């Protein structure tokens, strides 16, 4: 009985707090994305411009933890199969946040754009049972900085 109460408290806490945090995070992501649209990040491997630019490696890294509710929902989903929608938004947030942090770094360097952008994803606490998992997303690319006029 005590186990059940603890479980229900964790579940509702995970739902309420997790959902609030997610909504807040999405608002912040969209706001910063709109602002940083002026600094494009491209996936192409070679620099798109012929002109001389200095280049710098820029990285953006984020670790997001999955809440209890999402984890429980995903465990239930494992039983029946199908899209694990509770993790979709989690990973979407992580990827976008990582890219934004990378762009923020590029912006601080005065870059015009970032090319050869790549993502790395890692799951923290991989393989360990009975732990709330976290996901790490790393976005990195080469920033092009116009230093001629400086």
């Amino acid at each position, binding site marked *: 009985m005590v186990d059940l109460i603890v479980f229900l408290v964790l579940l509702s806490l995970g739902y309420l707090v997790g959902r609030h945090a997610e909504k807040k995070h999405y608002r912040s992501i969209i706001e910063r994305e709109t602002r*940083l*649209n002026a600094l494009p990040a491209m996936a192409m491997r070679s620099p*798109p411009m012929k002109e001389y630019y200095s280049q710098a490696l820029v990285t953006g890294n984020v670790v997001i933890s999955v809440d209890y509710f999402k984890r429980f*929902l995903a465990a239930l989903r494992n039983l*029946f199969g199908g899209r694990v*929608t509770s993790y979709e938004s989690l990973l979407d947030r992580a990827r976008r946040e990582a890219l934004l942090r990378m762009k923020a770094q590029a912006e601080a360097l005065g870059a015009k*754009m970032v090319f050869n952008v790549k993502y790395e994803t890692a799951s923290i606490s991989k393989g360990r049972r009975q732990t709330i998992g976290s996901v790490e997303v790393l976005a990195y690319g080469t920033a092009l900085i116009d230093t001629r006029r400086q």
Partner: protein
Amino acid sequence: MKYSNPQIPEGINTSDSHPLKEFVLLAGGALLLLVVLAWGFGEAGARLARFLPFESEAGLVPEGVLQSDAGPELQRYIDELATRVSAELALPPGMQVNVHVSGGDTFNAFATLGGNVLLFRGLLEALPNENALAMLMAHEIAHVVHRDPIVGIGRGAAIQIVAGLVFGDPDLAVLGQAGIYTQLHFNRDMERDADAAALRAVNGLYGHVSGAADLFKVIQSERREQGGGEPPAIFSSHPLDQQRLQAITDTVREHGWRADGPITALPAAYAEWLRDAARRHDKPAD
């Protein structure tokens, strides 16, 4: 060439379904699956349990769970009545019934593994005549004849194994717990069948079924006295006493049995025997 990162519309990489809706759907499905699984295993366990030979049932009862507080006279009387009732119930060959009397004031009686029937003084004291006692005994012995205790335990053990496997704590030592021998629950069909068989036995014994309904009236008035009233049918594995009385009336009419006839009184010393059993219960003999 112009390079730009347009604002990506929301809802492409994520699904727009409400998490609570998904939760209800998935949790409901999982629960349903669990119930179906437990029910299926329970039924299989119940069916398999029937194949267990009656002789090996006795070995499953731990020592000390069943002991009789009855003095020699009471035990002789109970045994004699049990023999007559058993003859009417046509016990299969090899099946043997042992009726024990507990001196405790619990208002109860039950049948358990190995043909053991335990009657409590609390209930025995309330019985008005021998016909009611015969009905009570016939009901419990009918459970033994129908193999209800082992079927109940088979079902319970199978369900417990499913629960253990699903919740990751398989307690497979279910048969080692003494509690399950005294807290067996039979389902309604089992009770109804036991009632019908008991009625037939009482009719065969006395030539009429008068007094059999007295048993249920006694149980009913005891429940009312405790103030709890009758529990709703869904919470109780025993059919409501009112329904049981109705079923008895129906069965009697169906078979054309006589509903009244001469009542057989209990032995004169019956009450004294029970007081003696109570004393033995409170102060166990060395």
